[in-house]
């Protein structure tokens, strides 16, 4: 752990740090080494405990930080729903420890050579929690009426899905108008492939169905109770289709909106697990040193995100590429990461994070390292010389209101840019207001938030760059910029079936957008898990927080 970050060296002044980049590099390496050491410690907690036999029983208490409007993952794709709904309902396919697709409700699959037909063979003998059998009719219903119609990102993914044929109870054939790369679908289904019971949803509006707040699924835990504003309870499913699972008796999700209060409850022994960076950076760093807890990014590699700087091209200054590059060069990202984000973030290299083994093009794409002199030179060259009081022009920065890191980042951006003569006014908004102002009204100069990478660039990444996005669609290209070359690369990659060619196309994409820089994504983060050290079989897949926890158990 980099103690420099925690306490501050009394004898080092700010000037030293800013100028001495070599020392920074060395210490950053040291920080990475120590964090790697910590990571290695928990890389495979199972290795140390492989000899133990799972203990049956126990209650696992989870920190539920932001209450959602409903609990059905077939209708809403977000970690806030999976943390509960993912234990009760199951997906067709999930990710295994290496991040490769593994069948859950589906046993096997195959794609036709033209990529327009994908057949899933479903597992036999699975029943819903109310006793009715799980069949391909449920898959057909969910795909056509929920994934395609209402599921965020699901509707884009299944845009060209025309029908799901069900020749028998164990077969579901997905028919597409345009070729669907099999590995894209398989990578998307863990998040976008949860199945709901047709017999409960077939009459009436699926969104108004009471089962959305009392879900019925096939998963290892059965829904018991939801006290709005307080807790959700689910009990062990004795008829679960996997033998000898689950181990836990009960899971309780406690609603705690205040992060400091959640940390207090963890320390008081009232919580076992806080998912998805649910505590403050400072508390997470502190609990990392407490033997009772394990603090790790393992198990969240599938939920990588990048911090963004979004440029509004409608501002004349920002439409000039030299200005955008100057802004990037003016910000000392490694310094920010080391001093403000601790071990929980690293330098990003573009829209595809390094955790994406299938698509990460490597660090050799256009980058913009900290270089204040270069920033000043570019701004001068673009014709924006400092005027009265050293100001060249001022900008309004809209930060998204979620995440402590965004708030720290926006302050740091403000401080850094004021040093090159660009004063920044930070404009605060709440969630709905932020989305409206940035993605609908375009009432911003700079915006910063999170870009969530969902295992495949085609799901929620390329929309940040593809032109033609409808006004008001959040987390899409609303910058007033478009590039037909980039559009073509994106479209080709979305329908390319050959995985090797696809990866190359996305590498091309990253190169193009890093050169043009309509959005800068300089920081890469993975969510952090804080969990009771007694937990076993945790963090064993890249999206562990969202999986069904059928193998989770608590030691004595």
């Amino acid at each position, binding site marked *: 752990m980099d103690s420099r970050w925690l306490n501050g060296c009394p004898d080092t002044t*700010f000037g030293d740090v800013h100028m001495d980049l070599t020392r920074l590099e060395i210490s950053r390496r040291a920080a990475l080494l120590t964090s790697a050491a910590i990571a290695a410690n928990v890389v495979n907690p199972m290795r140390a405990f492989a000899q133990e036999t799972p203990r049956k029983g126990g209650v696992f208490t989870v920190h539920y930080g932001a209450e959602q409007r409903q609990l059905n993952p077939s209708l809403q794709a977000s970690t806030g729903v999976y943390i509960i709904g993912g234990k009760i309902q199951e997906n067709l396919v999930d990710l295994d420890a290496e991040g490769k697709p593994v069948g859950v409700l589906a046993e096997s699959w195959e794609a036709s050579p033209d990529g327009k037909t994908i057949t899933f063979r479903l597992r036999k003998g699975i029943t819903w929690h109310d006793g009715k059998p799980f069949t391909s009719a449920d898959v057909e219903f969910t795909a056509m009426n929920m994934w395609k119609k209402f599921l965020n990102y699901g509707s884009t993914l299944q845009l060209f899905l025309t029908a799901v044929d069900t020749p028998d109870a164990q077969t579901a054939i997905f028919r597409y108008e345009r070729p669907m790369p099999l590995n894209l679908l398989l990578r998307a289904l863990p998040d976008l492939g949860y199945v709901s019971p047709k017999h409960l949803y077939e009459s009436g509006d699926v969104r108004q169905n009471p089962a959305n707040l009392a879900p019925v699924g096939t998963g290892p835990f059965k829904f018991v109770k939801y006290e709005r504003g307080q807790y959700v309870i689910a009990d062990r499913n004795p008829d679960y289709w996997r033998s000898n699972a689950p181990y836990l008796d009960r899971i309780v999700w406690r609603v705690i909106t205040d992060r400091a209060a959640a940390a207090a409850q963890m320390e008081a022994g009232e919580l076992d697990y806080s998912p998805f960076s649910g505590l403050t950076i400072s508390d997470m760093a502190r609990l990392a040193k407490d033997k009772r807890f394990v603090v790790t990014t393992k198990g969240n590699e599938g939920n990588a995100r990048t911090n963004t700087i979004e440029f509004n091209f409608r501002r004349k200054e920002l439409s000039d590429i030299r200005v955008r590059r100057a802004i990037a060069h003016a910000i000392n990202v490694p310094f920010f990461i080391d001093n403000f984000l601790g071990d929980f973030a690293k330098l990003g290299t573009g829209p595809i994070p390094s955790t994406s083994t299938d698509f990460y093009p490597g660090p050799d794409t256009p980058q913009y390292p900290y270089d204040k002199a270069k920033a000043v030179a570019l701004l001068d060259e673009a014709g924006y010389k400092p005027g009265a009081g050293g100001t060249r022009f001022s900008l309004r920065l809209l930060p998204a209101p979620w995440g402590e890191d965004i708030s720290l980042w926006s302050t740091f951006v403000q401080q850094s840019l004021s040093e090159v003569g660009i004063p920044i006014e930070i404009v605060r908004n709440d969630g709905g207001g932020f989305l409206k102002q940035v993605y609908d009204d375009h009432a911003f100069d700079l915006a910063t938030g999170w870009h969530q990478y969902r295992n495949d660039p085609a799901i929620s990444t390329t929309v940040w760059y593809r032109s033609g996005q409808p006004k008001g669609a959040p987390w899409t290209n609303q910058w007033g910029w478009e590039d037909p070359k980039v559009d073509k690369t994106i479209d080709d990659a979305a329908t390319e079936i050959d995985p090797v060619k696809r990866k190359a196309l996305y590498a091309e994409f990253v190169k193009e957008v890093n050169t043009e820089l309509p959005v800068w994504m300089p920081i890469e983060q993975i969510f952090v898990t804080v969990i009771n050290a007694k937990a076993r079989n945790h963090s064993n897949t890249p999206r562990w927080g969202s999986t069904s926890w059928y193998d989770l158990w608590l030691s004595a």
Partner: protein
Amino acid sequence: MDAIKRYCRSPAAVAGLILLLIVIAMAISASWLYPHDPLALAGRPLIWPFSNPRFPLGTDNSGRDIAAQVFYGARISLLIGGVATAIAIAIGVLVGAFAGYYGGPIDTILMRITEAFQTLPNFLLLLVLVAVFGSTLTTVTIAVGVVSWPATARLTRAEFLSLRNREFVQAGRTLGMRDIQLILGEILPNALPPVIVYASVVMAVAILLESALAFLRLSDPNVASWGNLIGLGRDVLRVQWYVSAIPGVAILATVLAVSLVGQGLNDALNPRLKGR
């Protein structure tokens, strides 16, 4: 003057005045002691107070000098406190005086309006106003003033209801004094003591409302205010509690000063305390 002598007789009131003057002095001297932008990056984040002579009160989680923010924050708090209180008192006293004195339909109408503002919990109205009009310093100040006037109105009205039938008022009427003269010249000075004490309450509430907004991250992030610092310190409350504690103490001291002064004024202006 008699009142000043009476004021000075109370050690608490004098202490309060001194404390208030210190806060005002901090506000005035801020740009002289800390010529740089208090929100600029000054050093490594989360340096402890008294550990580095450059940062006597340490740095916050954005690497900014806490002492500088405390000095500049005095300006913002006094500004918000003063302006919002002025707005609230002005509206409230006028509404309450006329309602209490005249009674009847004027009272009914004014009280319905007051009730309208009061039935909406003031913090909720504040949240709605900030959600609608934004989180800049101006909107926050006006919003705080706008949600604070009903209490003063009610208090003033209660005093007026009590006083308007008193002997000295009746005497004034007999002497032929006009309503306005009676309201402003005779009754108001007697009605004011609880209002003055309450004005200090309003000012304290105004400062605390702004800090609550900052706690919920809804205040203006572009100025160095104590509330913003408390909100920032919320994320490091357990270990680096000083980031929230120091501005909290500053707020406490200012509110204390304002209240002691208000109390001292009440005791000084209250003629019936003569001789105690």
